[in-house]
Structures are given as C-alpha cells and as structure tokens.
C-alpha cells in the first residue's frame, strides 16, 4: 500500500466524522426512498423482482449523494489545488474511492437489514446477496469517483457528472437486480452467481482503471 494513501484516507474519514454529512445523507435519503416505496406497496405482497429493484434504487441513492464528497466537493470548496500540489493523483483517487465504498457499503448493509424484513422477504442465498452488495458498493463507488474525477474542472460539472454517470451506473443496477433477485429465491434466476461475480469484476475494473485515468486527466 502506498504510504501517502493513509493520510488521505484519514482526512476523508476525519472530515466526515466532524461534518457528519455524507454517511447520514446517504442513509437518510435511501431510507426515505425505501419507506416511501414500502408504504406504497402496503398490504400488497411484493414479488422478489420488485423488491430487488427497489433495493437497488436505494443503493443508487446512497452512491449518488456521495458525489459531492468526491472530487467535485474539493473543487467547490477550493481545496483541490492544495490536494493537487501535495498528493499523488493515484493515491487521491484511491482514498476517495475507499471512502465512497465504505459509505455505500454501510448504507447497503443497514438498508438490507431493514428493508427485506419490512417487506416480508427472506434472503435465501446469503453468499450471492453479500457478493452482490460488496460488488455493488465497489462498482457504484468506482463509477461515482470516476465521474467526479473526470468532470471536476468543468464549469457545468454537476450536469456533466450526471450525464457521464448514467451509462456507467445502468449495467451495475441491472446486474445488481439480477443477483439480488436470485438471492431472494426468484425461480427463473439461474445467473445470480454470474451477475454477482460480474458486478464484483465491474468494481475491480473501476478501482484499477480509475487511478490511472485520473492521473492522466490530472496531468493533462
């Protein structure tokens, strides 16, 4: 591990510990979405497909609210230049990425623990579910960080980030829904494990390509 990764990671968590913005926003927004959807489905038995879809809507929320905390936030508060002159770009990306993974993962675990019992769903494949959540956190965090890193210096960065994120996030959601559906015991979901592995591979890809791509944009 890079020696300079630790202080960058420490900065992210220390700031969050004092600010309490990213984790609480991710959790509260996702929780509000889930409660609304569960309320809308009150007295109706949700099927596994719909439950899996709703869960991933909430996961997506958790990831999207972390965008301001990534590179866009540094630029908005005027600290990006300080970061650029004191740290290696690869380490900056990895620190932001790991912080974002932790945020999405924590939100996903809490939401999963609350949501499925709330809608009367039983998880039948814990391995597939855990792999799906872990891969989802990795790939959503990677996509969000990558988008943030690419658009940081653009004047219309918030709009641009959403435009770039959409095609990156859709495959994650599709694979996530498929694997979660399989974990909930949907009868026609043979490829649950494959989707879980696919989403993990996507996460690994963003984590490995991200630092290099970010370093290139940083220098050019």
């Amino acid at each position, binding site marked *: 591990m890079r020696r300079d990764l630790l202080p960058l990671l420490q900065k992210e968590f220390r700031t969050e510990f004092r*600010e309490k913005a990213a984790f609480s926003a991710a959790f509260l927004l996702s929780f509000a979405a889930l409660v609304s959807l569960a309320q809308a489905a009150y007295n109706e038995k949700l099927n596994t497909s719909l439950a899996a879809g709703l869960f991933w809507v909430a996961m997506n929320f958790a990831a999207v609210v972390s965008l301001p905390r990534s590179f866009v936030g540094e630029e908005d*508060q005027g*600290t990006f230049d300080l970061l650029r002159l004191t740290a*290696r770009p690869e380490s900056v990306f990895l620190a932001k990425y790991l912080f974002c993974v932790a945020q999405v993962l924590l939100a996903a675990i809490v939401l999963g623990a609350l949501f499925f019992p709330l809608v009367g769903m039983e998880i039948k494949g814990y391995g597939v579910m855990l792999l799906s959540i872990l891969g989802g956190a990795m790939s959503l965090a990677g996509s969000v960080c990558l988008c943030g890193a690419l658009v940081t210096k653009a004047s219309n960065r918030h709009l641009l980030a959403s435009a770039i994120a959409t095609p990156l996030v859709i495959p994650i959601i599709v694979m996530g829904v498929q694997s979660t559906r399989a974990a909930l015991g949907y009868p026609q979901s043979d490829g649950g494990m494959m989707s879980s592995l696919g989403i993990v591979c996507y996460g690994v890809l963003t984590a490995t390509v991200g630092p290099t791509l970010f370093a290139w944009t940083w220098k050019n």
Partner: protein
Amino acid sequence: MVHVEGLGKRYGSRWLFRQVTFSLEPGEVLAVLGTNGAGKSTFLKSVVGLVAPNEGRVQLPEGDRRTLVGYAALDMSVYPHLSVREHLEFTAAAREIDSNPVQEIAAVGLAGAEEKLGHQLSTGMKTRLKLAMAVQAKPPVLVLDEPSAGLDDAGRALVERILSEQRERGLAILATNDPTERGLATVELHLEA
C-alpha cells in the same frame, strides 16, 4: 532553474497573456504585476502546473512536484473541518516528508491556534496557514499569489522573512500589486489586461 518559454493562455478567443519568456536563477524573486483581470493568478497557475497553457512550456527543476514547488494563493481554501495542526500533518504525510508542525505553526505566528478548525480561522490566519503549508517542504521554487492580502503588519513582516529565506534556498515568483512586496522583487514582469 526555472525556464518559461513562449507561455500563453487564452479563454475563448481572448488571450490573457502570450509569448511570455524568462529564466530565473536561485536567489531571484520575480514580481508579476498587472491590473485586476490581467491574468496574474492564471499565469502563476500555469507555472506550477495547475492550469494547462495553450502555448509555450515551463521547465522546472527535476524532481517530485510535491516537494519541488510551494504554492499559496488567495483563491485556495483550507479544509473547514481540519485543525491548523492537522493541515500541516496532512500535507507533510501526503508529501511523504518529515515535519515539525508545532515549529511550523509557531514560525507563521499561529501558536495558540493549533487546534482551531479551518472554518474558525480569520482570513489572515488562513493566509498564514497557507504560507506554512507552502514552505513546509522547503521547496526550491516558491510561488505566491498576493501573499500579503488580508495580513496585518506582523503578517507582512512574515512574508518579507519568508521571501528572504526563500532567496537563500531557491527562487520565488509572486503576483502582487502591493508596493512593499514589489520592493522585495529582483525582477519584474508586467502583464496587461
């Protein structure tokens, strides 16, 4: 030591500056002068690599940019939720250098404010913190954008001392309109709006 050749930057069709060429040797202090909007800050950012120029090139000494160039600017912020001490610990660790935050804090006149968070600092205190971070690695190239802005008399004396120390270990480039700061320069560059 620093060689700038044909440097130019434009936004749209308007050139902020063009064909700027100079060389600086250790011991020299360059004052970049010009009216508001003349492009002084952008010029400094082009020199340190924060802004990509449209033409020309900047040649800095070989080495790791994290310790090669010290930079402080008006439009650069500090982290609102990190303390003064944590800022200096963070920049030292990210640069992978040894540091003594207590000494560095005292050197810029912030003793007693070690645990104050970024958002609790006054404008002058933030400027002092940015100066401390800029000179922390004892860089051979120090680039300061209006370093005395927002500083009191003691702060201005601090800037003079920093520039005098810098001349002994390398060179400095500062953007300014302040007559006192201008008096500290050995060379001048005029940018016109």
